[in-house]
């Protein structure tokens, strides 16, 4: 299969690989996919006091396109608000990376990972508010 140069770039030099402290109340985690399906994405975002995403990290078990999709979204997420992040669509990811049709599901997974991370941070923040 022929990968685009952008996929290859992210695959060879993935951005923002790693983890954040999952117990930090300002960190949201999204883990999507399943090993049996061939891909698992873990995306972590850290939100500052103003609601902006100040850091994003990922780890991905999956094909080159899955790795590239998650690497790309960590770049996109930084500096965005949580609400803006929630609006990122898989089609934008697929277009940016020129994913072939059989690899569109990788971009869907990346969108799901963002939504899961955002949901997690919202849940955490709601819990913190209640606690106050």
């Amino acid at each position, binding site marked *: 299969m022929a*990968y685009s140069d952008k996929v290859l770039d992210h*695959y060879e030099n*993935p951005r923002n*690989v790693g*983890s954040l402290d999952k117990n930090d109340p300002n960190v949201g985690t999204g*883990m*999507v*996919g*399943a*090993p*049996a*399906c*061939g*891909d*698992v*994405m*873990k995306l972590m975002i850290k939100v500052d006091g103003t609601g902006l995403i100040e850091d994003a990290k990922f*780890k*991905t*078990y*999956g*094909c*080159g396109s*899955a*790795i590239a999709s998650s690497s790309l979204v960590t770049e996109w997420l930084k500096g965005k608000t949580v609400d803006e992040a929630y609006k990122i669509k898989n089609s934008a990811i697929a277009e940016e990376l020129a994913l072939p049709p*059989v690899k569109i599901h990788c971009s869907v*997974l990346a969108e*799901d990972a963002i939504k899961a991370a955002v949901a997690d941070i919202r849940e955490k923040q709601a819990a913190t508010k209640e606690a106050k």
Partner: protein
Amino acid sequence: MDRMPIYLDYSATTPVDQRVAEKMIPYLTEQYGNPASRSHPYGWTAEKAVENAREEVAKLVNADPREIVWTSGATESNNLAIKGAANFYSDKGKHIITLATEHKAVIDPVRELERQGFTATFLEPNDDGLVDIEAFKAAIRPDTVLASVMFVNNEIGVIQDIEAIGNICRENGVIFHVDAAQATGKVEIDLASLPVDLMAFSAHKTYGPKGIGALYVRRKPRIRIEAQVHGGGHERGMRSGTLAPHQIVGMGEAFRIARLEMEEENARIRTLHDRLLNGLKNIEETYVNGDLKKRVPHNLNISFNYVEGESLIMAIKGIAVSSGSACTSASLEPSYVLRALGRTDELAHSSIRFSIGRFTTESDVDYTISLLAEKIEKLRELSPLWEMFQDGIDISKVEWDEH
């Protein structure tokens, strides 16, 4: 163009040995002729060469040349053997036994026979890939007409106990076919003593050309098959079609070289195999697929846990290897052979088949080991599953959101 990757995919196909190519080329140029045209010497020369090659093929497996039928390859040989014997002897019964780990060229003709009213048992081997002899015995029914078991598995390299299985078939009057496409030149085959009725061969897995194969059809006791390709009545009516002398000559020469050199070559390949295995074993969480003793040294199939297969293949572009069978690797399905061995989808997905051959060197092996060590480490740094494993989490117990 940059350098071609190091070739470690000899089980998919082998390069044509230069000595073989040199034998073939005269039949592509000056000695042309249709071997069925007996009336002029072009034809005679080709016919003699074809018969010499038949002798060479027979010699490698200790058979009579009259028991060798040319085909276009192992796929056709397997189709001809299975459909040909099942149809010819269908009045004796309509049950077939084969393995779940056979090549598609055996499984799919059996499936086609099922559509025509036969029934089939696809035996699951043990986790080491070997047939459980008792289970095989138990699978035989009064209406079992044919059994087909491969000699050497193409994906995991295990060698089946053909003699034991053949004896059971003999005792029960079951015709026994063996797919030996991956076996020639790798294991001793003595058809004078092996209780085998039909055996499929391929040239291009043994340093011969693509597009040519052969089927062994036993004469004593005589086995009959129904032709699948009809026409001019070549190959004593079992297989029609103009023969390609250059390809036949190539197969003959390839099998001759295999006979003369296999002992020495296999010793050398075993050394390379052990070197590769020892090098890759040092990587944590690796699993060899298939029995470690009853296997050909040409094959090493390893699963690398917590690394996804396709990204692994992408990472090791410097070597040409296969993930799963070459014939099915275009699909995203995990290898059905590894599944039949009880491997999880994840381990099946992350399996690499390294296959070593005549032109593999020690430095090829050393490069492969260092490449794998480096890339596996890099991919595991990226892998959330590896992180969980390191944290002591049992991944099989996690509830995944399967999509």
